[in-house]
C-alpha cells in the first residue's frame, strides 16, 4: 500500500513539473570566449546555461559561444575538469572568460589514518568511496553496498539470511590459505560494520596498501576500512532529510522438487542398480500419481500399529522449498537526519530504521536495526575545539529454531529441504506430520532471538596552539551487549489412532537457553602534528600514542522442561539440572606511532610511517615490536620534459612496509589448566568426578606474524581530467606465521607448541579506470555520464611450512598454490561393457551408466597420488581455482534533466569448484542424500534409453571429483540498477521542500551471463554446494525529501 501511495505521488509531482512554464523578459544576445586560465587555450564544449533555467548552449571549438539572456541573469559555465564559474549578466554584451582547471578529484582530500591527505599527494594505494553509493539502495548493511566497487577490496557474500553480513578482505590471502579481514574503523574507532547505518556514512576510505595502513601497526596488518560518518557543516543552514523505501524481496536460485513419483522411481532405480529390492512399492507410486492428479485427496494411510505411514508409505507430492520458503516478502527502510552548523558549531543527528526480512515461511525470520547517531562539534576558541559523538544501535534478530539447534541453515537446507517429496506438511488429521519440517519452519519448534545493543560514546578535542601545529586527542567507549534467547519446543504429532508422538523434526524436551554477554572497549589516542612549507618544500610531522583495553564477559544458562511453553524462562523451567557457564577475557594494547611526509612542489613525494606496538597477549620481554613503512612518489607529469599534454598527471608510486599480526588467542604465554566437568565415563564416590587437566605446553617465544609488503603503482589523469586511471602491483610475504613445531620425540608427552616458522606469499594487481563527461544534449538538456571499471587478481602460495611426517591432511607443502582445484579427468559415461573394459577402474564393480575416469599417468590405477602433495597428484590434474579470479566491477551512471540511471555490475571470469552436494549431484549416497529436483530432471540420468544424459546412472556410487561435473562459476551480475528522478527546485519548493528525489532500485537484478549448469547463486554454490540460505533479489521504491 505504501508503495502505491508513493508511486501516485511521484506521478503527480512529475505532472506538475512538466506543466510549469518560464517567465519571459526582454532578451539580449551575449557572446563570449572561454579559455583555460593557465595555458590560455580555448575551451570547447563548455556548457553555458542560465541559472535556474533550462536554456543553454555549448562553446564551439574556438571557445566561442552566443546566448540570449536578460540583465540580472546568471550564467553558469561548466565543463568537466574545470571549476564551474557563475557570471552575472550586466550591461556588457561580450565576455572574456577564463576557467580555472580543477584538478578535479585530485584536489579531493582523502581520509587516511590519523589525518587527511590530498589525493594527488598519496604515495600509497587508497580508494575513497562517497557515501552516496550506499544510499537509495535496498541493502541491509554497508558491506553489501561496497561489493564490486573497489579493485582489490573483496566483499564476499556468506549467505542470504537477514542477519548475515558479507565477509571483507583486502588483497587476497593473508596467511596459509586464509583471507583475513581488514580493520574497520568508524570515525577512528574499531566498530562492527554491520551496526553502521548506511545512511549515516559520509565516505569510506579503503587503505589497501600496507603503507597506507602502517600507521595502525599490528592492529591492521591486512588493510583498513575507514568509515567517516556525516557531520554538519559550518555555516550551513539547518537541513532535515527524510528517506524512506519499501522493499520486496524474492529468492534467487531456489530449486524445486520434481514430482514425488519421479523421485520414488529414481530411488527404486538406485536400489535396482545396486541389485537390491526397491523401497517404494508400485502401489505407493501409483498412489503418488493419483494424489498428484487429484484422484486421491489424502496422502497417507494409517498403518496397523496406529501410526501414519512413514518414509516409503506416504504418497503426497510436496515441494519442500515451497512449503518452507516465501515467494516474496516485504521489508522497509526509513531514515531521518538533521544537520547544520553555525560559525563555530556543527551538528548532525541521524535516525535510522532498517528491516531485513528473511524468506522462511511464517517464522518471522528477520533482522531489524534501529540506529541513532548524534555528532556535535564546537570551537570553544579559535585555537581549541571539542566534539562529541554518540551512537546507539539496537539490532533485533529473530530466526527459526531447527531441532533445538537454533539458526542451523545447513540443517535447514540439507535435511528440511531434502525431505522426501512424498511426505507432506500436515497429516490427514491436520496435525503436524511427524517427519515434516513445515511446523519447525513456521516456528512451532521454538525460536532463536538475538538482541544486540551497541552503544558508542566518543569525545575529542583539537588544539591549534600555533600556526601549523595541531594537537588532538580522543577518548572512546564502546559497550556492546548481546542477548541470546533460544527456545526449543517439542512438536506433538497426532497418530492416526489419536495417540501422540514427538515430531522427528523437533526436540523431545522443551528447553530454554539464554546467553548474555557484554563487551567493554576503551580507547584513547593523542596525536600532535606540525606542518610547514617553505620554498616549495612541504613537511608534515605527526606523532601519536594510542591505547586500547578490552573486556568481555558472558553468562549462559539453559534449562529443560518448561512449565508452560508460553513463558519460556529459566525461572519457569523445572529440570533439576540446569546448565550454567560463563566466560571472561581481556586484553590491552599500547602503541606509539609517527609519520613524516615530505614533498617538493608536489612532484617528489616521500612518506615514512612507523609504529611501536605492544599487546598484552605476549610476555613482557617480547611484547613490543616496531613496524616501519616507507613510500615514495614521483609525479612525472610535473617535470618540464613531460610532453604528453593529454596526460596531465602521472604519478609513480612505490612502497615497502613491515607490519605485524598478533593473531588470535589472548594469553599465549600463560599456561592454564583445563577443566572437565564429569565428561568421562568415570564414577568416583558415587558421582562423575570433576577433573582438572594439566596445562598445555606453551611457547614463551611465540610472537607476531610479520607480513612484509612491497607495492608499486601509478595514478594518471588524462583527457582534461575526464579520465583517471590507476594500477597497482603488490606482494605480501607473511613471515613468522605460527605453524607446527619441528617434530620431537613423544617422550615430550604433549604436542609441541606452535612456533613462528611458516611463510606464505600473495601477489596481485589492481586496475581502475573512471571516465566522466558530458555527452550530448537531449531535449535541450545536458546528458552527463560516467563509467567506471575495476579489476583485480591475486594468487598465493606456501613458501615455508614444517611438514609433520605421516600427516597428510591439514598440512601444507612449500610451493603449494592456494585454491588450486585438482580433479580427475572424466572419460565419459560407459555405454556398454566394452567401454568399461577399455577403462581403468577406481576399484569396485562397474556397469554401464557409470562414469569412467582417465588413468592420466598410465600406472594402471586411478588414484590421487602420494598423499595429495601438489607435486605428486597421481591421476588428478589442475583445472582451475576455487576462488574468484580476475574479479571486476563495472558501473555506469547517466543523468539528464533530473532523471538519473545507475547500473552496477560485478563479474568473475574465472572460478571453478567441484561439489558433491545433492543440490549439484543428485545421484550418490543413500536415498536420504539423493534428490530429484526439477533442474536435475532436465539434465537427466543415464539409462539404456537415455545414453546421452548428463548425470551417470542413478545409483549410490560416488566418483572422485572430476571435470565432467565441475561447476564453472564465471558470471556477470547486475548488482544494482537504479532509476531516479529529482523534482525541479521550483516544484519542490512549492511543497516547502528543498529537494525531492524518487527512485526505484533493484539489488541482485540478474545475470548477463552465468556459466554454471546449476543456476544457484555462485557464492552459495562455492560456500556450501548450494545448500545455503538463498539470496534475495530486492526491489525497492523510495523517496528522499530534504527540507
Amino acid at each position: 500500500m505504501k508503495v502505491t501511495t508513493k508511486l501516485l505521488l511521484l506521478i503527480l509531482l512529475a505532472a506538475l513539473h512538466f506543466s510549469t512554464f518560464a517567465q519571459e523578459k526582454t532578451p539580449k544576445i551575449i557572446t563570449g570566449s572561454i579559455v583555460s586560465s593557465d595555458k590560455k587555450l580555448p575551451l570547447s564544449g563548455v556548457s553555458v546555461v542560465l541559472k535556474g533555467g533550462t536554456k543553454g548552449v555549448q562553446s564551439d571549438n574556438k571557445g566561442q559561444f552566443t546566448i540570449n539572456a536578460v540583465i540580472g541573469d546568471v550564467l553558469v559555465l561548466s565543463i568537466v575538469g574545470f571549476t564551474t564559474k557563475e557570471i552575472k549578466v550586466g550591461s556588457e554584451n561580450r565576455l572574456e572568460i577564463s576557467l580555472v582547471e580543477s584538478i578535479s578529484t585530485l584536489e579531493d582530500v582523502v581520509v587516511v589514518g590519523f589525518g587527511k591527505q590530498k589525493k594527488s599527494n598519496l604515495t600509497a594505494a587508497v580508494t575513497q568511496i562517497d557515501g552516496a553509493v550506499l544510499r537509495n539502495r535496498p541493502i541491509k548493511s554497508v558491506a553489501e553496498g561496497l561489493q564490486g566497487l573497489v579493485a582489490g577490496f573483496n566483499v564476499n557474500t556468506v549467505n542470504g539470511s537477514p542477519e548475515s553480513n558479507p565477509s571483507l578482505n583486502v588483497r587476497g590471502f593473508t596467511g596459509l590459505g586464509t583471507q583475513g579481514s581488514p580493520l574497520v574503523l568508524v570515525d577512528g574507532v574499531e566498530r562492527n560494520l554491520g551496526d553502521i547505518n548506511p545512511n549515516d556514512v559520509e565516505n569510506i576510505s579503503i587503505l589497501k596498501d600496507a603503507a597506507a595502513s602502517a600507521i595502525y601497526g599490528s592492529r591492521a596488518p591486512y588493510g583498513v576500512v575507514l568509515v567517516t560518518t556525516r557531520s554538519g557543516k559550518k555555516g550551513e543552514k539547518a537541513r532535515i532529510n527524510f528517506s524512506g523505501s519499501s522493499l520486496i524481496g524474492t529468492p534467487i536460485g531456489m530449486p524445486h522438487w520434481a514430482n514425488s513419483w519421479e523421485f520414488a522411481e529414481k530411488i527404486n532405480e538406485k536400489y535396482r542398480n545396486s541389485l537390491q529390492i526397491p523401497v517404494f512399492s508400485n502401489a505407493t507410486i501409483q498412489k503418488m500419481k493419483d494424489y498428484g492428479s487429484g484422484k486421491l485427496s489424502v496422502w497417507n494411510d494409517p498403518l496397523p500399529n496406529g501410526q501414519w505411514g512413514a518414509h516409503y508409505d506416504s504418497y503426497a507430492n510436496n515441494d519442500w522449498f515451497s512449503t518452507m520458503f516465501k515467494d516474496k516478502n516485504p521489508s522497509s527502510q526509513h531514515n531521518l537526519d538533521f544537520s547544520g552548523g553555525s560559525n563555530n558549531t556543527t551538528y548532525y543527528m541521524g535516525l535510522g530504521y532498517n528491516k531485513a526480512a528473511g524468506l522462511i515461511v511464517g517464522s518471522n525470520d528477520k533482522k531489524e536495526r534501529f540506529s541513532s547517531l548524534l555528532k556535535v562539534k564546537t570551537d570553544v576558541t579559535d585555537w581549541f575545539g571539542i566534539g562529541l559523538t554518540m551512537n546507539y544501535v539496537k539490532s533485533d534478530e529473530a530466526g527459526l529454531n531447527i531441532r533445538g539447534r537454533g539458526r542451523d541453515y545447513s540443517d535447514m537446507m540439507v535435511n528440511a529441504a531434502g525431505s522426501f517429496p512424498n511426505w507432506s506438511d500436515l497429516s490427514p488429521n491436520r496435525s503436524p506430520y511427524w517427519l515434516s519440517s513445515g511446523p519447525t519452519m513456521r516456528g512451532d519448534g521454538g525460536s532463536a532471538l538475538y538482541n544486540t545493543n551497541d552503544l558508542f560514546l566518543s569525545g575529542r578535542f583539537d588544539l591549534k596552539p600555533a600556526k601549523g601545529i595541531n594537537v588532538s586527542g580522543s577518548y572512546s567507549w564502546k559497550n556492546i551487549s548481546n542477548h541470546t534467547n533460544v527456545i526449543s519446543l517439542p512438536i506433538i504429532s497426532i497418530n492416526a489412532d489419536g495417540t501422540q508422538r514427538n515430531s522427528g523434526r523437533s526436540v523431545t524436551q522443551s528447553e530454554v537457553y539464554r546467553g548474555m554477554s557484554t563487551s567493554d572497549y576503551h580507547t584513547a589516542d593523542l596525536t600532535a602534528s606540525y606542518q610547514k612549507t617553505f620554498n616549495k618544500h612541504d613537511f608534515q610531522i605527526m606523532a601519536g600514542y594510542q591505547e586500547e583495553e578490552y573486556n568481555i564477559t558472558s553468562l549462559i544458562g539453559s534449562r529443560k522442561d518448561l512449565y508452560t511453553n508460553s513463558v519460556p524462562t529459566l525461572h519457569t523451567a523445572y529440570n533439576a539440572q540446569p546448565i550454567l557457564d560463563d566466560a571472561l577475557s581481556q586484553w590491552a594494547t599500547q602503541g606509539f606511532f609517527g609519520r613524516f611526509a615530505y614533498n617538493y612542489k608536489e612532484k617528489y613525494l616521500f612518506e615514512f610511517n612507523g609504529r611501536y606496538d605492544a599487546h598484552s597477549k605476549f610476555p613482557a620481554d617480547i611484547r613490543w615490536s616496531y613496524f616501519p613503512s616507507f613510500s615514495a612518489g614521483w609525479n612525472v607529469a610535473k617535470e618540464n620534459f613531460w610532453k604528453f599534454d593529454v596526460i596531465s598527471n602521472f604519478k609513480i608510486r612505490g612502497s615497502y612496509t613491515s607490519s605485524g599480526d598478533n593473531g588470535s588467542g589472548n594469553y599465549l604465554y600463560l599456561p592454564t589448566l583445563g577443566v572437565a566437568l564429569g565428561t568421562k565415563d568415570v564414577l568416583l564416590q558415587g558421582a562423575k568426578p570433576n577433573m582438572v587437566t594439566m596445562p598445555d605446553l606453551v611457547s614463551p617465544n611465540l610472537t607476531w606474524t610479520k607480513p612484509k609488503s612491497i607495492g608499486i603503482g601509478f595514478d594518471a589523469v588524462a583527457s582534461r581530467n575526464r579520465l583517471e586511471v590507476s594500477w597497482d602491483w603488490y606482494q605480501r610475504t607473511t613471515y613468522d606465521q605460527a605453524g607446527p613445531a619441528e617434530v620431537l620425540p613423544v617422550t615430550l608427552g604433549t604436542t609441541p607448541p606452535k612456533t613462528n616458522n611458516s611463510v606464505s606469499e600473495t601477489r596481485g594487481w589492481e586496475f581502475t579506470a573512471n571516465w566522466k563527461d558530458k555527452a550530448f544534449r537531449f531535449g535541450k538538456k545536458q546528458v552527463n555520464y560516467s563509467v567506471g571499471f575495476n579489476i583485480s587478481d591475486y594468487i598465493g602460495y606456501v613458501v615455508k611450512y614444517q611438514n609433520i611426517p605421516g600427516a597428510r591432511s591439514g598440512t601444507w607443502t612449500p610451493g603449494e598454490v592456494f585454491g588450486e582445484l585438482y580433479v580427475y579427468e572424466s572419460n565419459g559415461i560407459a555405454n556398454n561393457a566394452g567401454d568399461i573394459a577399455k577403462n581403468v577402474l577406481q576399484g569396485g564393480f562397474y556397469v554401464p551408466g557409470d562414469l569412467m575416469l582417465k588413468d592420466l599417468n598410465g600406472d594402471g590405477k586411478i588414484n590421487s597420488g602420494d598423499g595429495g602433495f601438489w607435486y605428486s597428484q597421481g591421476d588428478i590434474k589442475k583445472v582451475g581455482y576455487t576462488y574468484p579470479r580476475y574479479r571486476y566491477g563495472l558501473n555506469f551512471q547517466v543523468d539528464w534533466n533530473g532523471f538519473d540511471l545507475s547500473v552496477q555490475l560485478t563479474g568473475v571470469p574465472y572460478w571453478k569448484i567441484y561439489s558433491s552436494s545433492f543440490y549439484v549431484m543428485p545421484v550418490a549416497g543413500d536415498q536420504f542424500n539423493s534428490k530429484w529436483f526439477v533442474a536435475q530432471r532436465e539434465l537427466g540420468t543415464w539409462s539404456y534409453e537415455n545414453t546421452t544424459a548428463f548425470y551417470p546412472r542413478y545409483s549410490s556410487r560416488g566418483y572422485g571429483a572430476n571435470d565432467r561435473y565441475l561447476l564453472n562459476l564465471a558470471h556477470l551480475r547486475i548488482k544494482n540498477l537504479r532509476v531516479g528522478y529529482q523534482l525541479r527546485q521550483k516544484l519542490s519548493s512549492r511543497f516547502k521542500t528543498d529537494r525531492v528525489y524518487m527512485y526505484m532500485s533493484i539489488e541482485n537484478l540478474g545475470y548477463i551471463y552465468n556459466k554454471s549448469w546449476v543456476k544457484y547463486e555462485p557464492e552459495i554454490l562455492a560456500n556450501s554446494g548450494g545448500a545455503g540460505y538463498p539470496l534475495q533479489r530486492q526491489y525497492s521504491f523510495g523517496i528522499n525529501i530534504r527540507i
Partner: protein
Amino acid sequence: MKSIIKYTGIFLLILTISLSACKKDFLERTPLDNMSDATFFSGPNDLKVYVNGFYPIFPRYHFQSFNDGPTNMVVDANSDILIACTGPSSVLLQRGTASQAPLTNGTWTSNFTWIRRTNYFLSNYKRVTTSPEARQYTGEGYFFRAWVYYNMLVQFGDVPIITEVLNTESPELYKLRDSRYDVAKFIIKDLDSAIKNLEWKNNIIAGGGRVNKEAAIVMKARVALFEGSWERYHGKKNTVFKVAGKTGDEFLNLVEPTVLELIARQGKTLFTTGGPYNEAYNQLFSQKDCGSTAGVFLYRAYDATQIVGHNFFDNVVDALYTAPRNMMEAYLDKQGRPQSISALPLNQKSLVNLAANLDPRFRQTIWTPDRGPQNKIIGLEKQAFPSRYPLINNALSGAFAIAGLRPWKGAILDANEWRNGSTDDVLIRYEEGLLALAEAKAILGTLTQSDLDNTVNLIRSRVGMASMQMAAVNSWSVTYARNKSFDPTESKLVNEIRRERLVELCYEGHRVNDLKRWAVYDDVMNGSKPQGAHYKEFFDYFNNTTLLMADGFNASDAAKCKLTQGVNFNFDVDGYINPFFNNPEFNSAGAGYFVEPGRSYLSPVPRTEIDLYLQKANITLTQNPGWF
C-alpha cells in the same frame, strides 16, 4: 601565544599521565576464567580434582561411545583361553608378517602423555600442605605413574624413565631406554611411595572406587612377580628377552613381605555371599557396588542412572566370545585331582557331566546346560532364546556363531544389565595377591602347606573345592607340558599354582602376561587351533525339534536351529567344534596360530622415535628383538 603553548604542554602532560603512565601493569593481563599453574595446587581438593583426571586410564567394559580403553575380555582373547568369534585374532596370526616396526605406536605415545601428566602432578603436589587427604591423592599420583610404567614394561620392556615435566629443549627428550630391571625397580619405588601415602579401602577418603593401599600392595606384588618370573624363565630358557645377570630372585623375594602386610589386614575375609544362584565366585563379578565387596580393592564403578553404564553382558547374550576346549581340560576334578588321573567318571563330551564333576568354579565360569533354558534365567526372560545350549549357528540370533562354551563368569543378568549395566568392573582383588605369594614362594622353593592354606585353599574353600595338599601334589604322576602353559623343569607345585591361577583369574586380563613371563607364549600358541565343546551334545539337542519345543521354541524357530555339518557349523575329526571351520588355517591341514618366538613377547619401538633420536641428537634408540 607562548602561554598557549605552555598550557598545552601542561595539558598534554597530564593527559598522557592519566592515560597510561600511572598504569604500570596496563599490559599485564591474566586469564580471568581459567586456572593457571601459578594459582592452582593450593589445597587438597586441587590435588583431588587433578588425580581424578587419571582414572579414565583404567580398563573398562565396552560401552557405546567410550570404547577407548582395553577391556579384559579383549586382552584375554589374544591368548589360549578365549576365542573371539568374529575370527582368529590377528595378533596370533603372525606367520609371514613383516618385522618392520610401524612408524608410530599408540601405546608409546599415549603412555608418555600420561607420564607427563603424572610427572606434572608429582612435581607440584608438595605445594599443598600435607594432610591425610593430601597424602591419599599423592599416593594416587604415585600409583598412576607406576600403573603407566607397568604398562610400558609389559609392552616394551626397556623404556626411558622420565620423572620431570619436559619442555622442547630438555635433553631428556632423547633419553635412552632404561633396562627393564631399572624400570621395574622404579615402578616398585613408586608403589612403595603409593603404599606409604594411601589410605586403606575402608577409609572414606580412599573408598568409592578410588585407589587405596590394598590395591597398591597387590599391584606391587603383581609387578614383582611379573618381573621376577620374567627374568627367571627367560633366563632359564635363554631367550632373547632374558635379562643378563638377573635371576629374578630379587623381585620374587619382594612378594612375600608385600603380601603379608595385606594378609595381616585382610586375613581370611573373602566375598562369600552367593547372590541368586548361591555362587559366590561367579557373583563376585556382578556386584553393583564393589565398595562393599570383600577382597575387591580396585574397581571401575558403573551406574546406569549416572549415565555411566556398560553392555558387558551383551557378550553373554550376543555370544561374541567363546571359551576353548583347553579351558574345559584345565580344571581339576572336584576332588582336587587333574582330569588325567581323576577317579570320577568324567566325560569331555558332556557339559552336564563336567558341570557335576569338575572344580565348582568350572560351572561358575562356563555356561552349562543343566541350568535349563536360557530364557528361564533371571533377567534373560526377554532377551534370550529358550535354548539350554548356546546357539551354534547364527540363524536366529544374527550374531556370531559360537563353539559351545560360553563364558559365564559374573553373568548375573537382569533386563537392565544386558544393555545398560551397572555392575562394577573388578580390577584388583585380594585373590591375586594371595596367588602371587603362593607362586613366588613355590618358585623360590619356600612354599609351605601353611602358606597354601592361607592362600590357595582359602580361595578354594569359597566354592567348596577340595584343598591343595603339597604331599598329594608331589605324588601325582602327571605330565606338565609347555604347550599347556606348564613347565616340566619346575616343581609340580609351581605348575599346580599356575593351574590355580588360570582357573581363579581367567577372563580378568592376566593370561597373556602370564604366558609371556613364563616364556611359554610361543609354546602355547604356535600350531594350536582353537576348538570348542564336543559337537554331539549340541547336535542332538538342536536337531531334536521335540526337545527344543519342550524348552519353549516355536516350530519355526526350532527349525532354524537345525545344525548341518559343513554348512552352519563344523567339527574336527575328534568331534570338537571348530569355530573357524571356514578358515583354511584352522582346518585339519592348516597350521593354526603362530607368533614369532623371537619377536612377539614385546612390541616394537615406533620407528619415527628411533629416527628422531638419531636425526636430532645422534642418539641410537634401541629396538626390541626381532624388529627392525
